[in-house]
């Protein structure tokens, strides 16, 4: 039964982040997942210090606020400050991560945050004690995850048209009166939510992988946009199952194995598309 829950969680994470990743891919913003997963650290620490607990909700809120703030800062620096846009992203997220690490070190003594823990889990969700898939035996985290992922899916499908038009032809969208910035920020907010919700259970690295790899695989396999969601889900499911099997065989991290499995599938699609020309 554990295996089932683990694979199901992996699949759910892959399909929801994959949907958003699809849009990020089209907008050439795939590194955003990496940036967000680092940048939310100070938000998590502050939320922890304010609420004084490891309860998920305050930490979610902290991380989500931080995620939106990060997006805003990147946008602000590149448009108002005239920073080169890739450099703006790099500067903002590394700076926030550095601030987060310093905060963790500073408050390590007083609060119950351990620098080593926070860093080892790649991000601050180890204090939540839901590292890896340990919490899955207990139904409650699984259900929260399911509900949250369902909400993300709903939001995604509700806003799909808006995101699509602003991704493909931002100028046209603007000219017919679509508020492109609102769509931009809402996609980023959704990505922050998906990132934060997911890496509580699967770890940051798998979130970064699932944000881009399944979408990229689907993108290689088809030119039809309407097939992409299905392909992304299939890719995610195969990665979850295959990754779980690899991790069983090697006694290694499940998240790591799933991201490796996802990469194998991508490479297969890459070779196939190359051969096909």
């Amino acid at each position, binding site marked *: 039964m554990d295996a089932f829950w683990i694979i199901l969680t992996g699949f759910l994470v892959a399909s929801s982040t994959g949907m958003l990743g699809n849009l990020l*891919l089209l907008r*050439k*913003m*795939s*590194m955003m*997942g*990496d940036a967000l997963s680092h940048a939310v650290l100070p938000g998590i620490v502050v939320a922890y210090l304010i609420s004084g607990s490891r309860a998920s909700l305050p930490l979610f809120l902290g991380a989500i606020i931080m995620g939106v703030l990060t997006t805003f800062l990147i946008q602000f*620096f590149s448009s*108002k*400050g*005239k*920073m*080169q846009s*890739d*450099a703006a*992203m*790099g*500067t903002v997220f*590394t*700076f926030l*991560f*550095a*601030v987060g*690490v*310093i905060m963790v*070190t*500073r408050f*390590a*003594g007083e609060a119950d945050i351990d620098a080593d823990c926070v*860093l*080892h889990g790649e991000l601050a969700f180890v204090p939540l004690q839901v590292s890896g898939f340990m919490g899955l035996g207990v139904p409650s985290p699984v259900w929260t995850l399911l509900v949250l992922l369902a909400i993300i899916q709903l939001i995604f499908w509700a806003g799909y048209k808006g995101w699509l038009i602003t991704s493909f032809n931002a100028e046209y969208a603007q000219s017919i009166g679509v508020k492109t910035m609102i769509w931009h920020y809402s996609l980023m907010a959704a990505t922050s939510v998906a990132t934060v919700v997911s890496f509580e259970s699967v*770890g940051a*690295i*798998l979130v*970064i*992988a699932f*944000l*881009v*790899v399944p*979408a*990229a695989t689907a*993108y*290689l396999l088809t030119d039809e946009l309407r097939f992409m969601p299905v392909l992304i889900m299939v890719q995610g499911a195969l990665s979850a199952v295959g990754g779980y099997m*690899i*991790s069983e065989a*090697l*006694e*290694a*991290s499940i*998240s*790591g*194995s799933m*991201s*490796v499995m*996802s*990469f194998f599938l*991508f490479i297969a699609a*890459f070779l196939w*598309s*190359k051969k096909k020309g």
Partner: protein
Amino acid sequence: MEILYKYLTLDDPNVRYVALSIVLLGGVSGAVGCFNFLQKKTLVGETVAHSMLPGVLVAFLLSGVKNPYVLITGAAISGWLSILLVDAITNHSKIKNDSALAIVLSSFFGFGIVLLTMIQSRYLGNQSGLDHYIFGNAAAMSPEDSTAFAWVSILVVILVIAYYFNLKAVIFNPDYAQSIGINNKKVKGLISFITILSISVGIKAVGIVMMSALLIIPPTAARFWTSRLVPMLILSGFFGAFSGWIGAFVSYAKTSMPTGPWTIVVVSCIAFASMLFAPKKGVVYQRWSKLLLKRRINEENLLKAAVQNEVRGKGKLFTRESIMTRQFFEFKRWKRTIKRLVRSKLIHKVNTGYTLSTKGRSYGAEIDRRHKIWEVYLQRRMQMSLHLVHDEAETMEHFLTPEIENEILSELGLCSRFNPILEIHELVPDTELL
């Protein structure tokens, strides 16, 4: 104070090596980062730095020792592979560079995590210290590390100087570089080489994310100060080195504080300050010069309108109402513009209204003249129709310099004393005024 003195004199051998290593690392990666920055590939460093984890671990598994040179070699090899893979994906599929970076980053790092957990479950107790290659540990810098940093710095400086011309050509104009026989691929390989070199020695000191930050942020800050390559390289290197020096001091003064993150916070602050206050490209300067320009345009518009009123015989006295027939002014804008013009003695207040001073009149007439000259130019040279030229000239009149004006006049075959007011609009000049 005493701590600062002790830090500055480098009395403590521990701090000596840490400070020296970080300063060298900051300087080198600051300079190296410029090449990636100028190619708009700043995030390459992030991917390469993450991709080094499996290399370090494979090197450890194969050799069974934690010799830094062996592990750094492993790191460099997997860093190199990651760049090759990113290029292969970008060149041979429709996947864009940013996605390729994210794909390679997450899968190499994921593979690294797999290896790390495998090692942890098998070689219990022997693997401590490997995580330095993820999070960095500047405090553990040894004399050998400083020496390694010094060699890397020297090597990078030599390479950059030796290939300076090629690097510059390839970065700024790859097509031109190709045409004069420079091998673009080789030069890009060189950039990758120095990037990998500095990251592979650096991750042990400051960790993956901080290492990629050291490649991204100093060039970002330096770019606000200069547009030329050599000053940018030097400035960026200096920012990196200086921040490293402060970062090492913070961690020396308060031992629990990590060096890498403080270095990044310092260099980020430099970048933010540069973005705001740098001359020419800084936000404050740009805002300020925009404001000055707006003010000048308002003043010039007002003076021009006043002169035109005079020419049309509406009298020397003008008020907001009389100006408004030619040029719209909101009340606030009018007030402010008038105030500045009075202060600079271009107009005088005369009981119920204002009147132009001699200086103000010739200024306004000059603007009007430029306006007309541009209209003539647009009509005769650009074949623009009459009803379009006015709006164009409304903007250009504020930007025509005497040099451009002369050039236009000579191109149109008109003498420099050409007075368009007379010739185009066929107005009878009020001799008393002009």
